[in-house]
């Protein structure tokens, strides 16, 4: 699960079929200044990746089922390389030794084969994964910044939309950076200008086609999403939804706390109630 606060902790997807081992790894990453998402299988990892543009690194057990010879962690690494080319994948196995994994090494940035994953090495694994994840995040942020500069030029914004750039600047801590892998995965960015959306400011949305529908998600705000049969319908539903949420944050509404703080601030800026610094 991804927190909706935007602290600059790298997000690591931990794929491990053993519940106890998964819990231990997730805890180790959370204690190691990362945000960890734990899933038990190849298919769950694929679903999580499709729904979470924020993952910075995948750490997978290579032997994900009890079937002898199963290497679904390798299959997962291959999938990640195909769909998210630049995303680092690290792997470990208590079943396969170095010789058995030699042909698969190229798919992983780090690999801990049988006999090398002792308790003492878990700290080292967390530390190396964190370093790789941070590096990947920085690269994606730079790409995001470049992509947004292009977007800004494409829309001929003579006077930079300060709020737009503030939302999307890599150092603003967004959890949804733009990168080539996301575009390859089918995500498209669309700028919905204030003249179109009826708010005081523009909105950037991710669009993704899934099972014949278009899903739209506000950039950096995954809690705000909607779907429709076309881009236009999904965006229309999303804008309508934002209006519904925004209507609920008036002066007499309950005060915000926790995750709602940043969401409420975002809505206030969108409606023009809160000025940009």
């Amino acid at each position, binding site marked *: *699960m*991804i*927190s*909706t606060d935007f602290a600059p902790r790298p997000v690591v997807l931990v794929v491990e079929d053993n519940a106890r081992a998964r819990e231990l790894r997730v805890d180790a990453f959370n204690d190691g200044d990362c945000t960890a*998402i*734990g*899933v038990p299988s190849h298919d*769950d990892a694929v*679903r*999580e990746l*499709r*729904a*979470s543009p924020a993952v910075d690194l995948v750490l997978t057990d290579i032997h994900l089922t009890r079937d002898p010879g199963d290497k679904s962690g390798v299959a997962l690494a291959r999938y990640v390389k195909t769909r998210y080319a630049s995303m680092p994948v690290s792997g470990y196995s208590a079943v396969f030794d170095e010789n058995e994994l030699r042909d698969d090494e190229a798919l992983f940035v780090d690999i801990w084969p049988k006999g090398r994953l002792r308790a003492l090495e878990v700290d080292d694994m967390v530390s190396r994964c964190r370093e790789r994840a941070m590096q990947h995040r920085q690269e994606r942020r730079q790409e995001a910044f470049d992509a947004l500069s292009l977007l800004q030029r494409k829309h001929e914004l003579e006077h930079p939309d300060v709020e737009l750039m503030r939302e999307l600047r890599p150092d603003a801590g967004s959890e949804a950076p733009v990168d080539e892998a996301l575009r390859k995965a089918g995500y498209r960015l669309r700028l919905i200008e204030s003249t179109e959306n009826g708010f005081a400011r523009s909105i950037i949305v991710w669009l*993704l086609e*899934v*099972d014949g*529908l278009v*899903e739209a*998600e506000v950039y950096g705000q*995954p*809690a*705000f*999403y*909607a*779907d429709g049969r076309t881009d236009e319908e999904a965006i229309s*539903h999303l804008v*309508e*939804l934002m*209006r*519904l*949420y925004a*209507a*609920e*944050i008036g002066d007499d*509404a*309950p*005060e*915000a*706390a*926790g*995750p*709602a703080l940043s*969401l*409420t601030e975002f809505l206030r800026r969108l409606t023009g109630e809160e000025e940009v610094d």
Partner: protein
Amino acid sequence: MQLSRREIESIFKKLRLEPKKSTHHLAGWLVVDGKRILPLHYSHSRKDMPGNVPHRFRKSMLLTGPEFNDMKACTMSREAYIELLRGRGLI
């Protein structure tokens, strides 16, 4: 993951959300101790949630898969959910 409108309606009821309706959505804020914590919404025009929507809904509740199953299966109460969020420092 499958998620029906009926299951979401049951979650909304359990969490005592008071959603507002638009042409496509029902949306409301989870309020705890008089403070807004999370926004949640769903499409009222569909019987089952399509595509990634079940996952997006689960993530918007800040729950893992097994936790969300507990929530759907009614084995997690509103109090347990709030306690879980509190334990994670989200409230």
